[in-house]
């Protein structure tokens, strides 16, 4: 199969926010924001701007009828700055005019005076000054303090990993319309309810007067989980105040400047091993650069801690996380949600240990992989653990040993060009670690012509959830997929939605769809039994739209039953709610069973490095991945390929550079470079682990969105291996991304 809207996509018929024909009289907004990283607003003068051509209104904190508050986890973020600004890009006002150009021109006429205050950009400095978003978090397993004495090798170090801009190809946007009952918002958000709840708060309206509708997103990757809300609220505020439709689509440069990104981390680790490479102890401290407000940082920090040991069993662990408040835009969710940052540190620790101990990193990796029943630092024990299977299958399928040998031979022969490879195993927990979010509902309608409409909380952003839900509904009802239409995500049809995030969209909503479809099946089976004059509806089955009784064909079909049900005044609409069973997590002891299951896999990444120029090409990425029973191969493979390339980008060329004043220098696609078709690996080979059904996923599938991203981490070590082939005694600071600049400097510094 293929993505739900693929055919429309290739014809250019799919409508994104900016493609919707705006109603007559629609006004356009532009966000006016702080040019400084920290300061008091001494003066704010709109008078000239208000006189500017086409301007219809300028809105700031004082115009908010409700509460000037958009914080999700913690109420610490205002929609518009009040007396002070806390980062370059902090929204101050929203200008609305007849055209976007006029709104922008008016913005240039706003006069503001600030008193600059000291700003912090370094998370360690913030921690030293006790500027934390939440009190520090600590996960512990075993007894780390006594474990060190048993270790033959103890290796310490620090690791930096950079932020990452989402570059969803569709920038943030929304349109708000005044309606009879309140405001309708069409938003490109992963979290329709977050938009609804926050807009209600801003406008001082009950939630039932705000309707949020989401057709599709031109990419999300977490960047529109929490951070689509502000723009929707601004449009809603202006639409409400002016009683006119208002549209806000951020130009790319503003999108990059104003919105949060993946969190940069600075971390310290200490790892202890026996002489044959068994890891006994691991202590790690993460300084998360949270930016100016909480956003989702606490939850992201927790996921860093959850994944701090990646795919390994380590008996003694102490992992501490500090969410540090700095004067940068609030960092936010991005595919992997803190997991990648945690995994990069443990992998670095292993590579460094291997170097010190004169072992192959792969040997240490293999020796410490998780086994069935092993306890993770948060108390959950593994089950259906496929870590070792995937790792060994990788060798089996792709002859890992030969790869390394060929590389060695190549490197012997070539002086200025070197090759490198690295293995990257992953283990990623599936569920929102904020337990209450693990719920979803579905509303399924069957119409009298047999066509079916499925509503859920899931938002389609290219990840293929609509196609999967369609398949799940069709399989459950045993009807042809062509009967099914998956509707837009709408807060009036589905209430209290969890954001489509944490790779959980299909799992949560898929189960809800199954439940709703089963209710409908039960009802129409009853109708069938009545029609056939039988008592026992349980002996009825529907297969491919044909009705069977005790496995014998009958004259009835699905469509007959639908028509009959209607005439018999039986409801052809069903609603169901699903919540993931048996998960819990205690935030005090930091122990529990937070995940429904884990995803496993292993990849080998190969790179060729031009040691004269410091540039590189990825030759291949080969993976064995545990998909469960894939609902849709094309979609799942596409998630793999896309995730891997995004991960490679994070580790290599995607570099955020701020100047000393907290102004982002890489604020355009011309300076912030993401992978292009040439950069992508020449070959991506994916092998699906066989026989790995998953009882905790719909149709025995497994979630797919985030895990592949983390294979990209291997790119870093493939590169350092190639670098070492050129300069064996290289001392490198582990500091991602490993740009051509850092490579060259490391290869040639004195």
């Amino acid at each position, binding site marked *: 199969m*293929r*993505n739900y*809207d*693929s*055919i*429309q*996509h*290739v*014809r*250019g018929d*799919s*409508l994104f926010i*900016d*493609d919707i024909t705006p109603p007559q009289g629609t006004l356009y907004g532009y966000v006016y924001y702080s040019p400084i990283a920290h300061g008091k607003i001494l003066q704010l003068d709109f008078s000239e701007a208000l006189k500017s051509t086409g301007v219809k209104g300028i809105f700031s904190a004082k115009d908010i009828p409700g509460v000037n508050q958009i914080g999700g986890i913690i109420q610490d973020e205002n929609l518009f700055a009040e007396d002070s600004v806390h980062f370059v890009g902090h929204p101050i006002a929203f200008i609305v005019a007849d055209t976007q150009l006029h709104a*922008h021109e008016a913005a240039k006429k706003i006069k503001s005076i600030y008193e600059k205050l000291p700003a912090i950009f370094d998370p360690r400095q913030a921690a030293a000054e006790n500027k934390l978003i939440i009190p520090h978090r600590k996960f512990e397993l075993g007894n780390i303090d006594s474990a060190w004495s048993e270790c033959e090798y103890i290796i310490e170090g620090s690791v930096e990993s950079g932020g990452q801009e989402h*570059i*969803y*190809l*569709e920038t943030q946007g929304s349109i708000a319309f005044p309606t009879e009952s309140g405001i309708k918002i069409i938003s490109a958000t992963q979290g329709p309810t977050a938009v609804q709840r926050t807009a209600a708060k801003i406008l001082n309206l009950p939630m039932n007067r705000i309707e949020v509708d989401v057709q*599709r*997103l*031109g*990419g999300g990757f977490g960047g529109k989980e929490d951070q689509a809300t502000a723009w929707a609220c601004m449009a809603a505020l202006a639409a409400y105040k002016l009683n006119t439709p208002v549209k806000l689509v951020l130009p*790319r440069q503003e999108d990059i400047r104003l919105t949060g990104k993946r969190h940069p981390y600075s971390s310290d680790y200490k790892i202890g091993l026996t002489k044959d490479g068994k890891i006994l102890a691991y202590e790690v401290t993460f300084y998360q650069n949270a930016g100016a407000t909480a956003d989702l940082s606490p939850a992201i920090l927790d996921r860093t801690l959850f994944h701090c040991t990646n795919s390994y069993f380590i008996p003694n662990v102490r992992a501490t996380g500090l969410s540090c408040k700095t004067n940068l835009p609030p960092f936010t969710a991005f595919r992997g949600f803190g997991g990648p940052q945690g995994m990069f540190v443990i992998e670095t620790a292993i590579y460094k240990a291997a170097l010190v101990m004169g072992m192959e990193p792969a040997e240490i990796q293999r020796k410490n992989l998780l086994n069935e029943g092993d306890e993770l630092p948060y108390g959950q024990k593994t089950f259906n653990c496929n870590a070792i299977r995937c790792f060994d299958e990788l060798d089996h399928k792709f002859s890992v040993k030969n790869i390394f040998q060929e590389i060695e031979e190549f490197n012997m022969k070539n002086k200025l060009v070197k090759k490198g490879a690295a293995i990257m195993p992953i283990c990623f927990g599936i569920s929102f670690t904020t337990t209450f979010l693990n719920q979803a509902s579905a509303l399924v309608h069957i119409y009298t012509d047999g066509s079916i409409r499925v509503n859920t909380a899931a938002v389609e*952003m*290219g990840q293929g959830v609509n196609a999967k839900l369609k398949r799940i509904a069709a399989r459950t009802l045993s009807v042809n997929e062509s009967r099914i239409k998956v509707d837009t995500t709408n807060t009036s049809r589905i209430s209290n939605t969890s954001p489509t995030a944490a790779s959980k969209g299909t799992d949560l909503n898929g189960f809800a769809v199954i439940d709703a479809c089963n209710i409908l099946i039960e009802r129409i089976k009853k109708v069938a039994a009545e029609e056939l004059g039988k008592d026992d509806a349980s002996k009825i089955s529907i297969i491919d739209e044909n009705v069977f009784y005790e496995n014998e064909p009958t004259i009835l079909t699905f469509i007959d039953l639908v028509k009959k049900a209607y005439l018999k005044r039986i409801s052809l609409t069903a609603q169901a709610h699903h919540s993931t069973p048996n998960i819990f997590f205690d935030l005090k002891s930091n122990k529990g069973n937070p995940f429904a299951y884990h995803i496993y896999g292993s990849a080998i990444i190969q790179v060729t490095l031009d040691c*004269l*120029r*410091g*540039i590189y*090409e990825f030759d291949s990425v080969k993976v064995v991945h545990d998909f469960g029973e894939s609902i849709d191969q*094309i*979609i799942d*493979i*596409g998630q793999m*390929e*896309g995730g*891997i*390339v*995004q991960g490679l980008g994070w580790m290599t*060329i995607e570099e955020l550079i701020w100047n000393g004043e907290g102004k982002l220098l*890489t604020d*355009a*696609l*011309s*300076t912030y*470079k*993401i*992978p*292009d*078709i*040439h*950069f*992508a690996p020449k070959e991506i080979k994916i092998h699906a682990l066989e026989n790995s059904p998953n009882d905790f996923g719909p149709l025995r599938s497994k979630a797919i969105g985030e895990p592949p991203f983390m294979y990209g981490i291997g790119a870093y070590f493939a590169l350092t291996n190639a670098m070492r082939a050129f300069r064996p005694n290289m001392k490198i600071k582990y500091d991602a991304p490993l*740009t*051509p*600049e850092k490579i*060259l*400097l490391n290869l*040639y510094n004195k």
Partner: protein
Amino acid sequence: MIEFILNNNHVYTDFLATTVLLDFIRSEKRLTGAKEGCREGDCGACTVLIGEIKNRSIVYKSVNSCLMPLGEAHGKHVVTVEGFNQEELSPIQYAIVDEGGTQCGFCTPGFVVSMTGYFLSNKKIDVDDAVESLGGNICRCTGYAGIKRAVEKTVTVYEQTSLKLNHLDKLITAKFIPDYFKTIKKNLEQIRKNGNLRKSNTKYFIGGGTDLYVQQWEELIQSEALFASQEKIPNEILQTKNKIKIGGAATIQQVLESHVIKKHLPSLNKQLELFGSLPIRNRATVAGNIVNASPIGDITNILLALEAKLHLKGKRSGRDLFLREFYKGYKLLDKKRDEIVEWISFQVPSKKILFNFEKISKRTYLDIASVNSTIILEVKKDTITKIGLSAGGVAPIPLHLNKTCEFLIDKLINTENVKAAVEIAMQEISPISDARGSAEYKRLLLRQLFFSHFIKLFPQQINAEELL
């Protein structure tokens, strides 16, 4: 009046010629297939094809409509993704759907247009070339693997189509394009040549617009402008007795494809693939690169080494000067406001010429150089008899390394001399730290590129290990 054909419709408009084509298509014509992803030529979501009659047939080129002035569409065929739609999907559209080449779909129309453009403008079809033609299209979702599979599949479909037909009929028969494409030529011929563009006291002179529209589109769209294409500025590349001449309206892609250039600087066409992307090269002019005066201009860098001369045409008279003397300071030129670069010329390189261009950027393709460098030499008995050497990204202006050249002239090609020369080069440069790299990196990089020139051109004489 600007008049052109948009897909299968005739368009007449009196909008300002400086209007951004993408805005016109999306807002005025409500064709929303072409998307705005960046408005600076860096994502390709806005890609459209421009068809133009040349030598009695239509030549199609992909361009970024976000950087293209509406006036430049006059007399041409503008094709958006909607213009390829037929009842059934085209083989390109079908392959993208089938191979998982689309996820969120935002980039997809751009890919469809670029791919179709590849088939329209090439008769020799090859998978690698087809992939190369997608270098200007960014996709954040798919990792490009599905897109590459789609390319392969489409090439196969094309190859299976009957060979007897001419190119356009072949594409129509295979449903790559709708059959209205057959009527376009006739309809274009009916459009009057000069779009009667209004122009009086204009502030702007637009070549390809790939710098101007990135930097100041908001001012541009409210202004009148002169266009190189309509000012009788030559746009050809030709060879006279001892000179190669590039017209002031010639594009980078023309240089890349030019037979004259291929003959005398055979490696250049491959190296110019590092310049922007195909749609950028299709619009960007050589003169624009020179006048924009960016220290990292790639073609400027090459022309500096080649000792190129400019012919400037003023209101009343013209004058010649060396490119090496054109730059007076950061974005400061020896040029009067109304002077226009009419020709760029350089001596036909001798047969014995050795030439190399190096460019390093964070991402190899579609990126601005951190540092670039060109060398051109003549060598007799291992001795340098003539040398040009430029360095970009290491000074406020596009730099020619005069002192380094002075040192190297009459010197033997050996490791020692190269080592000594690089020390002089290091004295000549003054890089600054910015988004493209730290000053320290740029210094090191120039050193490496300088060595690369010699390692590449003189593998016998130069011991790479000793150099590094």
